[in-house]
């Protein structure tokens, strides 16, 4: 016996409609449908009444719907389009999250009016909603008008989320409105897009009037000026890359893109965190889906690049957010070819020059900041009252000056290791001596460094005399210690105490 698995249709409708969380996705679906209907003009209005209820009105001059098409519009998973963006028949189910769907469409002289009441309430009541169909003959061109009343999506249809600015960027980035298809075809299907929000949603500017061509910022390949790398921009013209699979199939990847600095990139529309949106995008229907920044290689930073690689062999998840066939050989072949292509971009002379120029300009900036910090230091030095060394190397410079200017004994630095505990070897009248050179003598004792191998201290100042006295009253590393500041010496050890001379330079050097 064979049994057919059953589908709970109500649950499926709820599931699919709920898949679309972002209210903006309704705009994406509307634009895709109008594009598939070969519309040249699509107008989207979002209205809001006093009670905060939203109405979407989508009108286009596409080829309209007959009764079959209308069925597909309302049915689940029953698209009659096979080479179109909305081929899964899922997208329009987003409208089910509403109080009423009203469709008025004209195709080949026949007008159909259709109404579905309370779709979302009925689904949640475990009931499949129905729709009416009224036909009549008319003498007017094809068109479609869809009204969705009381629409809600995700966490509600929050008007604050729907500014013109946000919608415009979204259209350019995530919908057919940001298509790169026009780079690859002479008979590109152009579409004018208008979006109007009710003033209660956004009254800050005029409605959106745009088209479905994603354009790059103007080229600026070799600008004049000192700090120009950020403005540099180069277009990489459309290329069709062909890859053969092991089974003999051929794939075509249509790629177009640009490389540019921050100023150039800021002119691009992006959706989401601007700086994180660049890199290499994989696209289907010339709409960006996912990034594949690995193609750029570890030597390069993704944010210099904005490339869109379209391949119709990519398969997408129902909400178009993800590529579904990543584990297959198609995806592997596409990414391999993209790796090669991007290597060519990265090894191109202009790109290498651009990166060099950026580096150079960064260096120049750092020189400029160095100059100003040097000026500040100079100011401080001029205003300062005498010398004030801040590290042992500077103390050595002062020791040299002290020796050169009539010191009672000759003390020459024979060797100096900045980070060693006993950091200097002094050449004295008595031969070589191990010495510790310190800015402040008290700093040395803070570190609890053994004294066994030290013949002499050289310091700028004795430092914190109280701290030294405190050590004197206890002990240092278990042994008694005496600091005689008058004689300039340290007595250390219990049985035969060692005498370690201390030379304090402060006051002896000008």
């Amino acid at each position, binding site marked *: 016996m064979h049994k057919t698995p059953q589908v709970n249709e109500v649950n499926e409708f709820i599931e699919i409609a709920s898949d679309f969380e972002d209210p903006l996705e309704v705009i994406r679906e509307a634009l895709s449908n109008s594009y598939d209907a070969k519309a040249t003009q699509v107008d989207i209005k979002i209205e809001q009444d006093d009670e905060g209820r939203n109405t979407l009105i989508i009108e286009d001059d596409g080829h309209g719907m007959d009764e079959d098409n209308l069925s597909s519009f309302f049915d689940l998973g029953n698209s009659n389009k096979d080479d179109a963006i909305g081929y899964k028949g899922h997208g329009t189910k987003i409208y089910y999250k509403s109080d009423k769907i009203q469709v008025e469409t004209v195709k080949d002289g026949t007008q159909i009016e259709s109404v579905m009441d309370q779709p979302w309430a009925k689904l949640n009541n475990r009931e499949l909603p129905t729709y009416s169909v009224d036909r009549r003959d008319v003498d007017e061109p094809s068109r479609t008008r869809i009204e969705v009343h009381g629409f809600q999506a995700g966490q509600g249809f929050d008007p604050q989320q729907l500014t013109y600015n946000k919608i415009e960027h979204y259209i350019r980035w995530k919908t057919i409105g940001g298509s790169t298809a026009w780079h690859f075809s002479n008979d590109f299907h152009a579409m004018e897009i208008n979006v109007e929000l009710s003033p209660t949603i956004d009254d800050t500017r005029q409605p959106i009037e745009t088209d479905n061509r994603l354009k790059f910022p103007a080229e600026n390949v070799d600008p004049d000026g000192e700090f120009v790398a950020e403005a540099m921009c180069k277009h990489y013209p459309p290329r069709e890359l062909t890859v053969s699979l092991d089974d003999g199939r051929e794939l075509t990847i249509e790629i177009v893109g640009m490389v540019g600095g921050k100023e150039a990139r800021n002119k691009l529309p992006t959706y989401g965190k601007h700086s994180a949106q660049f890199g290499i995008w994989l696209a289907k229907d010339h709409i960006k889906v996912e990034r594949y920044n690995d193609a750029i290689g570890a030597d390069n930073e993704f944010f210099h690049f904005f490339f869109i690689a379209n391949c119709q062999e990519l398969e997408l998840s129902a909400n178009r957010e993800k590529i579904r066939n990543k584990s297959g050989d198609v995806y592997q072949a596409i990414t391999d070819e993209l790796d090669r292509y991007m*290597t060519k971009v990265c090894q191109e002379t202009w790109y290498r020059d651009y990166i060099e120029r950026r580096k150079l300009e960064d260096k120049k900036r750092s020189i400029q900041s160095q100059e100003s910090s040097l000026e500040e230091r100079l100011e401080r030095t001029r205003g300062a009252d005498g010398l004030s060394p801040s590290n042992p190397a500077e103390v050595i410079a002062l020791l040299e000056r002290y020796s050169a200017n009539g010191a009672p004994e000759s003390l020459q630095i024979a060797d100096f290791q900045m980070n060693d505990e006993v950091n200097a070897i002094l050449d004295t009248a008595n031969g070589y001596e191990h010495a510790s050179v310190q800015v402040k003598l008290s700093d040395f004792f803070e570190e609890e460094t053994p004294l066994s191998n030290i013949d002499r201290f050289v310091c700028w100042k004795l430092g914190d005399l109280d701290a030294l006295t405190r050590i004197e009253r206890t002990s240092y590393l278990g042994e008694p210690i005496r600091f005689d500041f008058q004689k300039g010496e340290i007595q250390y050890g219990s049985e035969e105490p060692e005498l370690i001379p201390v030379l304090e330079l402060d006051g002896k050097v000008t």
Partner: protein
Amino acid sequence: MASFEIVAEAGEARRGQLQINDRTLETPHLFPVINFYGGGNEGALFGGGVHRTVKEFLAHDNEVTGGKEYSDLFRGVMTSIASLTDYGIREKKLEWYLGNEIREWECFSDYDGMIFADSGGYKILEQGGGLEGEDFEKEIDQDKALDMQLDLGPDIVVNLDHPIHPDDEFEERLEKMEQTAANAARFAERREEVEGACYLTVHGYYDAMLERSFDLVEAELSEPIPEAFDGIALGSLVPRKDNVEVLVEAVSDCKHVMQQRGYDDLPLHVFGISGKAMPLLVAVGADSFDSASYLHQAINGKYSVSLFDYVPIDEADFDACDCRVCNDDFHRARMRNEMDDLYQKDILGSVAAHNLAIQQRELRQFRQLIAEGDQDQVAGYLEEAAKDQKGFRKFVYQLINERMNPYFEETDTTYA
């Protein structure tokens, strides 16, 4: 006695004919390194394990070749006087080896390829300026090196050089270059004793170093370089052999310095390099190479699939290879260790011959491409060869882009 004629060019790559006495060599060419003596006796073809098997291929030993002709793998070979003492031989034996020229030994009497006799500068430098055997140490200077080279009956000889190392301090490098230049001058004084071609070694990784190397030689010589020498050999690259970018820069800069000084009619040999870098170096103007990598790979159990890849011998797919070694059931059986009484040298010898055949095949194809004079084809060949070599291909793409076909030269061709 020696001439070099350029018969075709494709960009900076060139195809030439090196004519020395009555022997002709098509360039670009790879001279496989052969150890002619290897511590053995004539009856055992002077011993040396896999080295011996390779020599048996060279000398048409039917038992090893399976009765087939493999002389095209050995049109020109490289040997070094330093290899004479490779197996810790006694002095008497060294004298015996040097008593006859290579082709005077009966076993090598049929060999009709060119013999490039290197001075072995690298090894001699490593051994503190001499050669060591079991019961002797010989100080080697330019005169002694040349005497030994000439004893081998070579077609090409080169001055005793003092190779530099990437870690050398400037002073050390300068000293080595000066010694090399002094040797070159002494070598040039004995020019007429050489019946074949005399190559001059130069060393350096980039233009300034190479200019210094040439300057020092020019200062020592009493005549212009092209009158004293028949070719230039660029050395010291072996320690950098895995850094393709450095190799390309060195060869390209050497070529450039030669052009500036008017020596670019001389052939340029690159010491110690083969494999995947070779096509790139040909593309920037190198004319010949030498390497023992075909043999070392075999000794390490590696079977070349292409210039870029190799697999362990037991994973090799002989059907996928069009070389004559792999298309011969005799060698297949050997490489698969399917014959009785096989020694490791017999198995690995056939693998070494295959590995060499792969390298020679690539150069043969490259020569044909250059002969057509079409730089686009050369670029296409390089691009295809490197297309699955991540990491390496960026150097290939850079070279093609900068020196052959800019990838993105055209202006915007979008449909507006």
